[in-house]
């Protein structure tokens, strides 16, 4: 992809992000932060490329840095989605009266 097509994706995604995030209900702003945290760990893609490249005879340092980054991003991905799921499971409607 050339720079201009990447830039177009980026700019469009910023607009999508703007409208999508304004539609998030304020009650869910903490889960929003937790889930954005998890998805920003998509940077693991870069980390995987670096770790896998070790076999190609590339730099060994690069490979180990990649592996550490894979581990860090995994903490975030698994932790982020799990904690979001845990929070979202708590939001309940009034359907079950607690004290009757």
């Amino acid at each position, binding site marked *: 992809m050339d720079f201009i097509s990447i830039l177009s994706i980026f700019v469009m995604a910023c607009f999508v992000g703007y409208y999508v995030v304004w539609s998030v209900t304020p009650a*869910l702003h903490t889960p929003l*932060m937790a889930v954005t*945290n998890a998805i920003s760990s*998509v940077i693991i893609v870069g980390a995987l490329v670096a770790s896998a490249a070790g*076999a190609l005879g590339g730099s060994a340092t690069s490979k180990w840095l990649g592996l550490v980054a894979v581990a860090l991003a995994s903490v975030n991905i698994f932790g982020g989605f799990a904690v979001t799921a845990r929070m979202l499971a708590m939001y309940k409607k009034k359907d079950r009266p607690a004290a009757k």
Partner: protein
Amino acid sequence: MHEAVAVNPWAMLPYLVSGICFILALRGLSSPASSRNGNRFGMAGMALAIVTTLITHAPGSSQRVCPIAADCWTVFTVDWISAIEIAGAIIIGGGIGIVTARRIAMTAMPQLVAAFHSLVGLAAVLVAIAAYLNPQAFGILQPDGRDIFQSSRIEMGLGIAIGAITFSGSVIAFLKLNGTMGGKPIMLPGRHIINLATIAAILILVGLFHLDTPGLFWAIAILSFAIGFLLIIPIGGADMPVVVSMLNSYSGWAAAAMGFTLHNSAMIITGALVGSSGAILSYIMCRAMNRSFISVIAGGFGGDSGGAAGGEAKEQRPWKRGSAEDAAFLMSQAEQVIIVPGYGMAVAQAQHALREMGDVLKAQGVTVKYAIHPVAGRMPGHMNVLLAEANVPYDEVFELEDINSEFAQTDVAFIIGANDVVNPAAKTDKSSPIYGMPVFDVNKAKTVLFIKRSMGGVGYAGVDNDVFYQDNTMMLLADAKKMVEEIVKAMAH
């Protein structure tokens, strides 16, 4: 040597799909009912991105073999050691992540999010360094194989700078939120000049990064770590919600910058989403405190509670003290009670007792509503999570704009652990530091019950509150949790 592993054109497609999944994940958060499905979309998108990368960049080497001259094919040998190492890294990281996510207390959510931000930042830095050391693997080497594309260099420079700022900034934010480091702003002399100079230096270095000067890359990294640290230390505890949102935004931009380097649409889309999300949250937080983003960044506002209280001698004004029995009686007689919880409620862990009180009142036919200020708690939406954890149904919880007009028709406003967000000075007193901040009109309610530890303490902003001295206000001086429990007991009689 092998040819540079360029991104397979077909791999673009799954990355795009995973980008769309992430958009749907955020879209789901528009209501609690659709949010759980949204989260599943997020997980699916992430799984897709990871699997795609593992397939297109499988650890191993491909070789063109031609046993018979006319018949050639590619043989791919998997490098199992690398594969196991990668799997190990994912399992170790994922294990730590899941255990932390299960164990963490909901009150500690701001620290956790700050800690997670720091990991994204650090991962971005490591990936940028890895790409710098092994550009061939990332397909960012010029065709002659001698140098990294100039545009890629600038993107990488930005990636490492934003990543490093996110990392060191989040570490400081974590330490402050966790209480390891005092919430008081730390003011260095001449910090504005130091900060601006450092930022200018980073930008210049990123601009110069196309020159192949060794050391430039590391200089950017070190300066960026420093600026992240310098930017956050002067910011006080009360402004932390803005800081956490801002770092959320940075972690997104870091991912986007690396997406530009790797020409990866999933990373770019995600980066843009997360970046705008954090920016919007910072804006909402600033608006809710009536402070400009610049003044928050400049720092120095709001230390630990009561820090700013000393000095000015206030004239003694009369106020009424109530007991748990009085409060129980007033609320049982009411038609509608609006509860205004603040961070003090979370500190006292009173949310479960509070919900119990709400249940008793509802059983007696009283309408109970919760009013949440955007800056209640230590991060956006924090109070909503705490109430949800205590099993408060989300349709009883209201935002500032939706409920503020109802106080005039409300019998009892029950304020627990909040102070600045109910201070009428924000509307009337132009000299007040919180002037202009949107507040709850609790003074319009027939009766105000105000739980507070003591009369001495003031809110984060360090201002006195006229609501204390109103004729219709009853102060309940005690630990929030104990007081609510006593009220519940008194109601049972």
